[in-house]
């Protein structure tokens, strides 16, 4: 399956219009992206004007590829995911940008048209498997609903399809599980059901918002393995939101590092791991436990600033060891330093290699 994409220039995956490069959107490579997001800005209206939670976000994903969005809590990962599905809380608005799914501009769709996209063209798996299924209905009922919302199948055919989906996500005795209620299943099983729901209509993009965070480690590994298998079998592009760099290393084709609603670094996974450029990315790597030493974990001092308290310049400047007056006053633009490796830092490109 992966072979299908051999020969495609990797840059295609990263072909984005950034403010820095000012690249025109007419690039021929854009058409190959399953999902292309440009200038996405998510805001919360206040009396003193809108506050931007996520600003000028650009990325795209080629069919069958996996993009990992990483960053600390509060960096805007989850609201980005919800914004793509247009499931943001009422209080939040998408104030700028475009979301292009296989050539359809999602932000311009009516609510009714958008409903046809959700669960069919693009679907989503959530962080909380324990509460994401409706306790009042059986698993079968909820999978069948996902199927029949988008396809006209007879009740019997939909049920057969539901059994097939449960088998796909490796749930034992799927026929019996159809009649189980969510509370009768473990967290891992429920997340498998959520994956089955998301795959029900063979979406071209699957958004997974920290799907393994709430699960214990052995189950995490199983779910990751399952997602990897399904991605290659279904050929869906995956947006995988996580703060676990170990997970990123296992599944990512591309990595987008988000901090306080801004892209800090965006590159192929290999480039990020071998040649991280942004001090924030370096900080994230440094904070990884190495499994050998008994030294305390390295941490990035401080917290992600609150919305409305973002610094004037680089968002990371309040916590960055390298920050200068320029960093604090002027926002660095996301610039391409070759092979589509984009970094928003006045210091880039820095001398490479991991610390």
């Amino acid at each position, binding site marked *: 399956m992966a072979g299908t994409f051999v020969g495609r220039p990797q840059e295609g995956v990263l072909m984005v219009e950034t403010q820095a490069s000012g690249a025109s959107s007419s690039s021929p490579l854009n058409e190959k992206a399953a999902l292309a997001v440009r200038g996405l800005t998510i805001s919360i209206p206040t009396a003193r004007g809108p506050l931007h939670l996520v600003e000028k976000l650009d990325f795209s994903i080629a069919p069958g590829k996996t993009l990992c969005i990483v960053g600390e809590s509060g960096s805007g990962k989850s609201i980005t995911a919800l914004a793509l*599905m247009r*499931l943001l809380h009422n209080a939040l608005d998408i104030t700028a940008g475009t979301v292009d799914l296989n050539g359809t501009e999602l932000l311009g769709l009516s609510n009714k048209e958008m*409903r*046809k*996209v*959700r*669960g*069919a063209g693009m*679907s*989503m798996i*959530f962080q*909380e498997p324990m*509460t*994401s*299924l*409706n*306790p*009042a*209905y059986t698993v079968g009922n909820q999978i069948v*609903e*996902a199927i029949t*919302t*988008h396809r006209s199948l007879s009740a019997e055919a939909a049920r057969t399809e539901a059994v097939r989906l449960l088998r796909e996500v490796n749930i034992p005795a799927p026929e019996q599980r159809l009649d189980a*209620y969510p*509370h*009768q299943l473990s967290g891992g099983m429920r997340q498998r059901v*959520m994956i089955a*729901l*998301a795959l*029900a209509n063979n979406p071209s993009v699957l958004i997974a918002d920290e799907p393994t965070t709430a699960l214990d480690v052995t189950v995490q590994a199983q779910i990751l393995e399952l997602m990897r298998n399904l991605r290659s079998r279904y050929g869906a592009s995956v947006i995988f939101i996580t703060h676990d760099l170990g997970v990123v290393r296992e599944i990512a084709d591309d990595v987008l590092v988000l901090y306080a609603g801004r892209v800090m670094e965006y590159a192929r996974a290999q480039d990020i791991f071998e040649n991280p450029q942004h001090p924030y990315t370096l900080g994230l790597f440094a904070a990884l436990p190495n499994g050998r030493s008994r030294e305390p974990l390295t941490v990035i001092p401080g917290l992600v600033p609150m919305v409305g308290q973002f610094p004037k310049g680089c968002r990371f400047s309040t916590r960055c060891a390298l920050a200068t007056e320029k960093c604090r006053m002027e926002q660095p633009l996301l610039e391409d330093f070759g092979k589509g490796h984009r970094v928003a830092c006045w210091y880039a490109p820095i001398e490479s290699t991991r610390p």
Partner: protein
Amino acid sequence: MVQFILRRIAIAIPTLLIISFLIFLLQVMLPGDPALALAGEDPSPQAIAAIREKFQLDQPIPMRYLTWVANVLQGDFGMSIRTGLPVRDMLIQRLPVTFQLALMAMILAVLIAIPGGIIAALRPNSPLDYTVSSFTLAGVSVPNFFLGIMLILLFSVTLGWLPSGGYVPFASDPLGSIRSLIMPSIVLAFATSAVLMSHTRSAMLGTLNQDYIRTARAKGVSEPLIVIKHALRNALIPIITLGTIQFGELLGGAVLTEQVFGIPGFGKMLVDGVFSRDYSIVQAVVLVQAIIFLIVTVTADILYAVANPKLRHQ
């Protein structure tokens, strides 16, 4: 499930015994001697004794309790001390009236409360929501008798659309019977729906914020289905319990409302019984009320389990 129901009923039986004993005791402890009250002016000691013997007031208390329970179990609630008629016949006459009134009020209350609560929850803090809140506040604060009198003034006295009181039996004239109970059911439904509506609103607000609602939206499910199938279905679990208990309260008889509209129901029977110190009537009414309430509570528990899959499978 069957086991759950049987267990729930088994728990209700000792409760019922305790209640029956308390009702009996309360009766004994009331001030005033019914024999004296019955005997008329200047009674001779023989006449009083005769009355005591006739109504078994001369027996020791435990004996009187056992006799009473044995009789009740056979459907014999004794004779009215005032009229000398069997209390059972009065119960049979009055219960259907109150049942019809309670049913009409409950249907009305549900029809107002559920849609009202849903609408308020869908648009929290909107003018519509505030309207619903005002209705709720009015519903719990306006006294029944006041609302009843106002309705009579408007619909009977001024407009002349509805009878101001009385009751037409359902069997003889169904439409007239419903007409005769419209105003009292509105009065009862007003307070009942107010409580039910505010609970529906908060339960819906709770379920609409659940993760599974987001999942349903992410599946592409339409908004009406999300509200009814996903949110309301879960919100109804506590609402069913509340509604059932409210129905039980209505079945217990609406003392003031029945009084205002002159309805020969259960509540009025109790009031009349108390005023005339007719012990057997008061005893019977309170006991039947307790039984009804027990049945309703057990029903509420069973319905709760039926509506909630988590309980059903335990």
